[in-house]
């Protein structure tokens, strides 16, 4: 029976569990940090010696942990790119700018169990020789910022932060920085610019890869809240045990934010790939199905920028068969395992882990108009295709949603979107264009019908025959 596997949120919803440090300590808090700081130098079979820091980095790499922010990149590899020879300080930033529409997982950690994030951060900082770290929290989450500041203060009082942590000689300070309310601040280089006090314009890469030229042009690690919390658990249970959770190349747990037309919207922590999209929507342990009398129309599987799935879609996935050979299998939408690789092979992504369910009451043109308006509003406007294209698509969709659609509009929209994706400074270009590309391609008939209806209505009103198309 598919069910939650609570690792990060193990304690969060326990009766009487509070976000203060005493409660955390009673539940074994900061024991993992003590263990990590005290790791003895290890001798490898080849005679090389491995410091405590190297051991932690190695563990995180071996755990297979993939970034929980959206891109799903290996956290251990990301750490390995850090320029450790530049002579400059290395910074670590926790990206708590959770802004992707449909996503509400990081705030569960921050609001209910912030100390495991702090502990994960201290371990990550220790492993990467970081002595100054920041939590960049979304401006719309003042309560989260208050709780984090309180948690940092408590950790400092207990000697987990500050100078000479737990007598090991390791120094670390963590500051909370509140954003001012812009989606683009979740893009890591936009975040870095914002943290530097500038307009959050994402940086061009090359040359500004954060691992080399990040905050204040120093090597910088930017990790998501959930990723850093997972580091604490990887070090608590060991990479071997952690990587047994989930499925190969999609290890561990992740918190899924389920919203839309389901009976039980909410957050669910699952082993990655052990639960299918269908189970998440319909099983009583998760979404509990659609509202009575409704049928599934579409699912956005990874936050509003992920490409939409249409009910009934089938996908060809590459799977390792029982004989160990790769084989192509056909998988129904509802049977897609909720993991990084399957969703990518199905042409979308698990993104931030936000599943938005739409039933047959949904006006697909209106839904896309809503999403596009968000991206038009949040485009930072730095580079041309996204700045002009995002608003262009939004205006066209607004027009379509308000009775002035044209037969030409579906192709018009596709063409605008194609001129954005892959041509912008940051991935916002994709975020703005993918919903349009996927909605129009998969629900083409609805867009076409809208155009035909509005044109003939207009023709009747003006007494003109619509031009043949």
């Amino acid at each position: 029976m598919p069910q939650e596997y609570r690792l990060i949120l193990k304690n969060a919803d326990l009766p009487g569990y509070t976000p203060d440090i005493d409660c955390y300590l009673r539940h074994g808090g900061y024991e993992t940090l003590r263990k990590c700081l005290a790791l003895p130098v290890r001798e490898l079979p080849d005679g090389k010696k491995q410091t405590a820091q190297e051991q932690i980095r190695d563990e995180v790499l071996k755990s297979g942990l993939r970034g929980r922010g959206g891109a799903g990149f290996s956290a251990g590899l990301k750490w390995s790119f850090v320029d450790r020879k530049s002579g400059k300080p290395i910074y670590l930033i926790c990206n708590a700018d959770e802004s992707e529409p449909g996503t509400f997982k990081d705030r569960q950690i921050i609001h209910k169990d912030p100390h495991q994030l702090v502990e994960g951060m201290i371990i990550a900082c220790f492993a990467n020789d970081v002595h100054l770290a920041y939590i960049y929290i979304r401006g719309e989450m003042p309560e989260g910022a208050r709780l984090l500041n309180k948690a940092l203060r408590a950790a400092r009082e207990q000697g987990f932060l500050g100078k000479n942590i737990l007598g090991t000689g390791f120094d670390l300070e963590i500051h909370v920085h509140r954003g001012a309310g812009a989606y683009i601040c979740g893009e890591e280089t936009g975040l870095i610019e914002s943290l530097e006090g500038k307009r959050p314009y994402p940086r061009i890469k090359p040359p500004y890869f954060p691992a080399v030229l990040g905050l204040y042009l120093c090597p910088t690690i930017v990790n998501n809240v959930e990723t850093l919390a997972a580091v604490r658990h990887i070090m608590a249970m060991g990479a071997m045990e952690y990587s047994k959770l989930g499925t190969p190349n999609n290890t561990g747990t992740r918190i899924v934010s389920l919203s839309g037309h389901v009976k039980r919207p909410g957050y669910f922590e699952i082993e990655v790939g052990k639960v299918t999209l269908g189970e998440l929507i319909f099983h009583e342990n998760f979404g509990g199905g659609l509202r009575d009398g409704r049928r599934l129309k579409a699912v956005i599987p990874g936050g509003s920028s992920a490409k939409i799935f249409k009910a009934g879609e089938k996908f060809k996935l590459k799977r390792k068969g029982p004989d160990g050979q790769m084989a192509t299998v056909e998988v129904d939408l509802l049977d897609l395992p909720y993991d990084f690789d399957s969703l990518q092979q199905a042409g979308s992504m698990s993104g931030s882990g936000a599943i938005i369910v739409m039933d047959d009451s949904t006006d697909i043109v209106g839904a896309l108009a809503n999403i596009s308006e968000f991206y038009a509003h949040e485009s930072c406007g730095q580079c041309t295709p996204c700045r002009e294209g995002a608003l262009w698509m939004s205006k066209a969709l607004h027009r379509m949603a308000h009775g002035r659609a044209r037969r030409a509009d579906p192709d018009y929209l596709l063409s605008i979107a194609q001129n954005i994706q892959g041509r912008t400074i940051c991935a916002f270009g994709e975020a703005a264009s993918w919903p349009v590309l996927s909605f129009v391609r998969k629900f083409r008939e609805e867009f076409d019908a809208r155009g035909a209806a509005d044109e003939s209505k207009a023709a009747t009103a003006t007494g003109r025959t619509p031009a043949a198309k």
Partner: protein
Amino acid sequence: MSTPTPFLPPQTAPSAETIRVKVDGRDIDVPKMMPDWQGKLQPTTMLQACQLAGVEVPHYCYHSKLPVAGNCRMCLVEFGTPMMGPDRKPVLNEDGTPKIARSVLPYEPGTPRGAIACATPISPGMELYPSSAATRQMREAVLESLLINHPLDCPICDQAGECKLQEYSVQHGQATTRFVETKVHKPKVVDLGPRIVLDDERCVLCTRCIRFTRDLVGDDKLGIVNRGSYNTIAAFPGTRFENNYTLNTVDLCPVGALTSKDFRFQMRVWFLKETPSICATCATGCNVTVGSREEVIHRLTPRENDAVNGHWMCDHGRLNYRWVGRSDRLAEVQVRLSSGDLQRSSWTVALDRVAQHLRKATAGSVAIIASARLTTEELFLLRQIGVRVGAIMDSVPRRGEGDAYLVHADKNPNMNGARATGVVGAEPGSQLPRIIEGIRTGAIRTVLAFGEDLVKAGCPAESLGRLEMLVAGDILPNATTARAHVVLPGCAHLEKRGTFINAKGRVQRFRKAVEAPGDARPEWEYLLDLHRALGGPSGPDNIEGLFHWMAREVPVLAGLEWSRLGDTGVTVTI
């Protein structure tokens, strides 16, 4: 030399080591490293490689002397890199050539992907396709995006004719638009500062103006407000954009967003005749292009010269041209009658009168004041005349405020020309008290003043009345010309040819932009006549010949040739 600044970075040579790449199918070896905007060697970019291959990559935000922004996306270029096998060796085609993997979108392998040429370094074996169908499609799309919200008000836009939106529209644009939505409206006629007006609707948000004033001038006054398509360039709230370099942003602006209050709505740029010249406002000698039509100057714009002013000039110098067209310009040769009245005369009569007087003058009774605003050739001729008649000579120093960028404290454009030709000694102006005293006591009875007002230079006006002969060669009337026995109307430097030697010893040639009014002649022309009349050798009668004569006589100019000065000059040691 002053220390290099971001404003005027050092001139760095590209690396000797080269990389072979292909541009549009042609092999080319390009330097591995090339100077960036600060003159630091950085890996050569795709854009630089294409430039070296003679292929233009269109762009708005990129400028060789500004930090790279990469925001306009106009320079997106499709490219390919050699494929590597699992053994990390290049994969070869059947004919032995390396197999190239064309860049594609990672999530859509059938779709070509471009890279911004301005910021993407080249690598060995890379192939660049700046003319491919995919590259052209990307450009057309960017251009379309830039135009959908643009007001398309070219007929009334000052930039029309030198606008990158127009130029690239010709090359990469569409004749029609498919945009059927409502355009974004933004502020118009924004009074950004004392010299700049901004039209935000025309702006393409390339941020050149912001980067220039922030990173080069150090005046972080401009920024962007709002977001997305509503992004708007603005000055920091409550402040004015008013440093002495603001007008450079008008030149940098690739479109008609930033306009000069001085120039806007004055003249269509395609009517302007462009003449290379030099700014004469201080001793820096910024290279300029003079824009004129029908003998009226309409604007000065900086002309690139990395040894002098880079791409820039100060606002004060740029706007210092209106006096050339003043209505009270000296336009008549005048000779004072015995009645005491000045009467219009001719060059022959006037110069003959001066020569006759000088031939009779005793050594030591003649003084020549030669302005350091005259050309080197004219100063040389005055020196020749001075030696011939045994005159005391000097020039008038002009000191003022300098800055760390381009403005020099020496406000004369050619004091080094006066030094080189021997018109002044080590200390310009040191002879002036002696000359003024000589005029007062009557020891000096003849004064030739060229380009300087003696009264302003400290000589009491009543002393001038005692002179037997006061010759004033000048451009505008002043207290000296009013008292002169002979008035010789001269030319502004924009009305003649010649050279200035700037504060760093740069010998810079300038050309004639406009005609002088009335009788006015270039000083060097009539000084040659005067020199001959005083028994000098017949000599040359054109500027080239005069320059070569001077180069033979003046040690620091030895070996220089007029034609080799080019339009950016040659540096000598003063």
